[in-house]
């Protein structure tokens, strides 16, 4: 088996705050393979964004990568020098941020914002005068690809002149303009209405098919994962609690949190099925006890759970952080 | 060579007819001349005239000097004189405004040309001080004034003086250059002739400290209004020295003669005894003032040198107060405007020690002046003020400040006998008789003590060692003709 495109091993990220050290990401390991779509699910604050900000080298003080490794195409990214990192970002790995409303610079035209990536990374663009023309052409192509009509005319527009869905598309166009090998889409649809959400997700799926890149789709909606991702990793309180092929995880969750999540949302086609809330609340990330982080809310807790629980593979392609993972339920 | 002067105030205007400002006049005199001027001893000497004669007590004729040229090159003629004075006397002659200097011409009715070199002043009543008062009026060119109009006169000049204007940066400086066609000035004043320096720069530096600093730094050669406390610095500097001249301004504290407690002469006398003038002169004025016992400057016409002195005597003051029914002293307020604030507080402190418990109220100049205006309400107790006497003639200070209803009679003093003497003195043409009349009047006033008599300060100047030939004038004019710099 070939090496995965992106391989994160035991990543730890912490933020020093006035209240104490927030261990936002605490031992996350996952792989993204060539061409696949990996879904990352988890509730708000579970560490989804921070994990991938780590991948992008965008953890700023008071945050710090405390340990672990991030390898992209076999190259270690933790501790990479800033220049090299900069060349990597936007060209090999691209990321779209959670909130399209605030992620485009309101003071610059969208044309500027897409052209600058092309000009910064476009080694394959011709030099001299032709360079700008070529970059423009590629920008227009990219915008057309994501479904912005009359793209050439809209280069001079400012972000506020775009609707929410269009801004999200624009961000995707910018991210994809240098044909990255990996796209990290951080909750591309959370702020959007369902009808628009469907458009954007389908767009990402079709571009992935066209360009053959890998995609990490961050979301808190299991439905989105189910429809669009090959594999899924479930985050809870800074740790991955379960990962595996999407269909398997959904039909046969082995971590009580995953199971609880599945049972707590109403499903349109089974509205008669009662929903079961997960009682309690997400733990505070400061001063966590060493044991299972889901322990206080777990209906199946037992004494072993008070000790550190390893994230371990229990079947081909599947892993979970639960002492009961081996037993199907 | 270039002469630089640090001067307190910007001229308000360059129109000699349209201001009542001493500083403006000082500056204007470097460009303009009058018919009559003062010599260094403050004696009247002819300037643009060769002589003046009284035809009768109501008519005076002047004979013009010949060969006098305006800066424009035109010769000065009798028409210019007539024009100058008609402009001053006629209501609305300054583009609708009336000259504020009109009143300085007293009963002058008209000025008429006799021939090309003679002009007559016609008075509505006898007025012997006319020649002295003529020193205050500068002669303008008729053709220039008609051309420039009131607005032009305000910002341009065409005088006969030793210097002509090159540039005037408002609020900042005036540049003057030597007028080669200058007639040489009053022959009676020593070293008559053309100006000594090529250029004069009058730099406006209102801030006292800055002005002194500029002198000390060698930026300027003359500064006016040297503060007394800076004398030490100027004297300590090898490149600068202090020059002084007895001023013409009498300082006094006007007591409200119409109101208790100062309507009682004993209280007024007590106040005079209560004040240690010598101490204030020594400490606040660095000794640069002459204590006065009356209204007139010792240099003035008709000064009475034999006036009694109110010596510093706290006990006498207290006794007088007690006599007047104030055994426990009195509480009064001393009004002052900003510049007199320090002085007022010092006076108040000293008076208080003698039982005249004095509070100082500082108001801005015109507010206080309003309060003490002759026809105003005059509701204060005391006001520290002063009266200038550029002409050094009693008519110019005695009458306005002490005659009943005089425009500067802020004390509200009224004495029939004094009024009569002043009226007589104003008409008397015999000099000796006139002087005697005023001496008598001074004696009466000093006894009645309508004011606390203060002093006559020296005008202090700081000059650089480069400067020669210049001396300050009691009139306050800059008289720059003689000033030379190496």
């Amino acid at each position: 088996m070939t090496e995965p495109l992106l391989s994160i091993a035991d990543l730890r990220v912490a933020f020093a705050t006035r209240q104490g050290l927030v261990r936002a990401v605490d031992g996350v390991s996952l792989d993204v393979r060539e061409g696949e779509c990996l879904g990352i699910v988890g509730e708000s604050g579970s560490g989804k964004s921070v994990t991938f900000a780590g991948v992008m080298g965008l953890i700023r003080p008071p945050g710090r990568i405390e340990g672990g490794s991030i390898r992209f195409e076999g190259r270690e990214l933790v501790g990479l020098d800033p220049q090299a990192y900069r060349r990597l970002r936007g060209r090999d790995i691209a990321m779209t941020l959670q909130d399209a409303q605030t992620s485009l610079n309101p003071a610059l035209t969208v044309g500027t914002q897409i052209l600058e990536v092309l000009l910064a990374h476009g080694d394959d663009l011709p030099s001299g005068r032709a360079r700008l023309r070529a970059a423009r052409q590629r920008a227009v192509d990219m915008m057309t690809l994501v479904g912005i009509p009359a793209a050439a005319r809209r280069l001079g527009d400012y972000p506020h002149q775009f609707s929410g869905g269009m801004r999200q598309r624009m961000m995707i166009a910018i991210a994809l303009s240098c044909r990255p090998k990996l796209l990290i889409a951080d909750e591309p649809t959370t702020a959007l209405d369902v009808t628009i959400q469907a458009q954007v997700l389908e767009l990402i799926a079709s571009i992935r098919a066209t360009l053959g890149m890998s995609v990490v789709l961050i979301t808190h909606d299991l439905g989105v994962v189910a429809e669009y991702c090959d594999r899924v990793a479930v985050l809870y309180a800074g740790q991955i609690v379960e990962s595996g092929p999407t269909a398997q995880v959904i039909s046969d969750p082995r971590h009580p949190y995953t199971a609880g999540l599945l049972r707590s949302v109403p499903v349109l086609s089974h509205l008669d099925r009662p929903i079961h809330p997960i009682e309690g609340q997400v733990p505070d990330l400061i001063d966590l006890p060493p044991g299972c982080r889901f322990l206080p809310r777990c209906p199946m807790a037992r004494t072993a759970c008070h000790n550190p629980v390893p994230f371990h593979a229990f079947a081909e392609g599947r892993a979970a952080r639960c002492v009961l993972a081996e037993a199907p339920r | 060579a270039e002469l630089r002067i640090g001067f307190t105030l910007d001229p308000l205007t360059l129109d000699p007819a349209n201001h009542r400002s001493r500083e403006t006049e000082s500056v204007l005199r470097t460009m303009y001349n009058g018919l009559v001027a003062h010599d260094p001893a403050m004696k009247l000497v002819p300037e643009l005239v060769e002589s003046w004669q009284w035809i009768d007590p109501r008519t005076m004729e002047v004979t013009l000097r010949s060969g006098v040229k305006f800066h424009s090159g035109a010769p000065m003629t009798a028409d210019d004189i007539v024009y100058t004075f008609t402009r001053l006397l006629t209501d609305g002659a300054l583009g609708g405004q009336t000259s504020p200097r009109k009143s300085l011409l007293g009963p002058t009715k008209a000025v008429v040309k006799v021939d090309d070199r003679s002009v007559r002043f016609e008075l509505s009543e006898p007025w012997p001080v006319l020649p002295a008062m003529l020193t205050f009026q500068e002669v303008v060119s008729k053709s220039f004034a008609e051309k420039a109009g009131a607005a032009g006169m305000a910002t341009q000049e065409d005088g006969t003086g030793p210097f002509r204007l090159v540039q005037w940066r408002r609020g900042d400086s005036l540049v003057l250059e030597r007028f080669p066609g200058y007639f040489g000035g009053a022959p009676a004043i020593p070293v008559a002739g053309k100006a000594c320096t090529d250029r004069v720069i009058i730099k406006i530096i209102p801030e006292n400290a800055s002005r002194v600093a500029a002198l000390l730094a060698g930026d300027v050669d003359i500064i006016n209004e040297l503060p007394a406390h800076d004398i030490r610095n100027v004297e300590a500097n090898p490149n600068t020295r202090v020059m002084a001249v007895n001023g013409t301004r009498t300082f006094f504290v006007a007591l409200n003669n119409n109101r208790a407690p100062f309507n009682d002469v004993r209280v007024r006398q007590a106040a005079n005894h209560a004040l240690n003038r010598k101490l204030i002169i020594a400490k606040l004025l660095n000794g640069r003032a002459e204590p006065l016992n009356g209204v007139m400057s010792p240099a003035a016409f008709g000064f009475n040198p034999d006036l009694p002195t109110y010596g510093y005597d706290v006990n006498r003051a207290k006794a007088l107060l007690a006599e007047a029914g104030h055994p426990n002293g009195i509480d009064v307020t001393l009004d002052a405007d900003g510049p007199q604030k320090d002085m007022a507080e010092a006076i108040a402190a000293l008076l208080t020690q003698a039982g005249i418990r004095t509070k100082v109220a500082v108001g801005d100049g015109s507010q206080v002046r309003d309060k003490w205006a002759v026809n105003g309400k005059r509701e204060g107790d005391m006001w520290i003020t002063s009266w200038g006497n550029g002409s050094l003639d009693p008519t110019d200070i005695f009458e306005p400040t002490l005659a009943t209803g005089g425009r500067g009679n802020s004390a509200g003093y009224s004495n029939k006998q004094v009024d009569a003497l002043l009226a007589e003195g104003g008409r008397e043409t015999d000099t000796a008789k006139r002087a005697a009349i005023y001496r008598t009047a001074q004696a009466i006033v000093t006894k009645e003590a309508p004011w606390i008599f203060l002093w006559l300060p020296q005008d202090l100047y700081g000059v650089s060692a480069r400067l020669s030939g210049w001396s300050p004038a009691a009139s306050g004019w800059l008289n720059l003709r003689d000033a030379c710099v190496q």
Partner: protein
Amino acid sequence: MRSVALLQRLLHLVPVLFGVTVIVFLMMSLTPGDPAEIMLANQNATPEQVASLRHDMGLDRSLPTRFVTFVGHAVQGEFGLSLFHRRPVAAVIAERLPATIELSAAALLFALFMAIPLGVVAAVHRGGILDRLATVGSLFGVSLPGFWFGILLLLAFAVNLRLLPVSGAIDFAHQPPGLTGFLVIDSVLAGRMDSLGNALAHLLLPAITLGLPMAAILMRVTRASMLEVLRQDYITFAEAKGLGRTRILALHALKNALLPTVTVAAIETGSLLGGNMVVETVFGWPGLGRLVVESIFVRNYPLVQAAVLLYAVTYVLVNFVADMLYTVLNPRVRM
């Protein structure tokens, strides 16, 4: 759409300017003391003369009539006679204006050139030594009484060290030909480097004294808004795009961060205009501010009235221009 917005803002100026005018007029009309008497003070004026001057000056008419006349004249730039100069107020003010404008502009430039780079650097190196220095410096800047600080500067640099001139705007030896009245511009136009140097030497201390509080405030604003902007998602996204640090700071961040700076700068020109009075007095600067102070003490109210109105109108217009500038910088409000 933009011209409509512009017109709209312009129209908003009308009631403000009207209100300002009413207040200025009332301020001076309710002042005790009769201008006619002040004008005739020391002149042996008879009551009839005073009355006729009152009539000429329109003081015998009712307040509303006088207001209408005042506004009518003010619109034409006429403010009556300066009581002491006995010349039109407008002419007297016009002579003093260039010096004041020059000083204010210099102070503004000083403030901007100090504040913006310092604010940016402080924000970028947040918590660093430069940031601390700038913060402490700005606290000093807003706490310094300008009139006192000016005196200290004067004492140090002009009197004791003799590095800079004591007073005024230029020395005569270096006086450039008066084309515009602005010494710096005139010097450049005439190609007189000596004049330029001399004018700048005179400008230095007053401009610093006047500009320092503003620099302090603008530095804080720039720092705060820069910090705010650097937190924004679009900065993170720009970084995710792999752009260089300089481009991110200079283009992406600064263009947004300057918005509050512009607004506050406009508001702070108010303290610049007011500070003129103090600083010109301290440094013997031949400008309008000193003239106003002097005029107050001789109760030259027509001049004070005109100057206060002029200051207020200038201030309103500066803020209007800043509004427009804001529009240019911020596409979001451009519609």
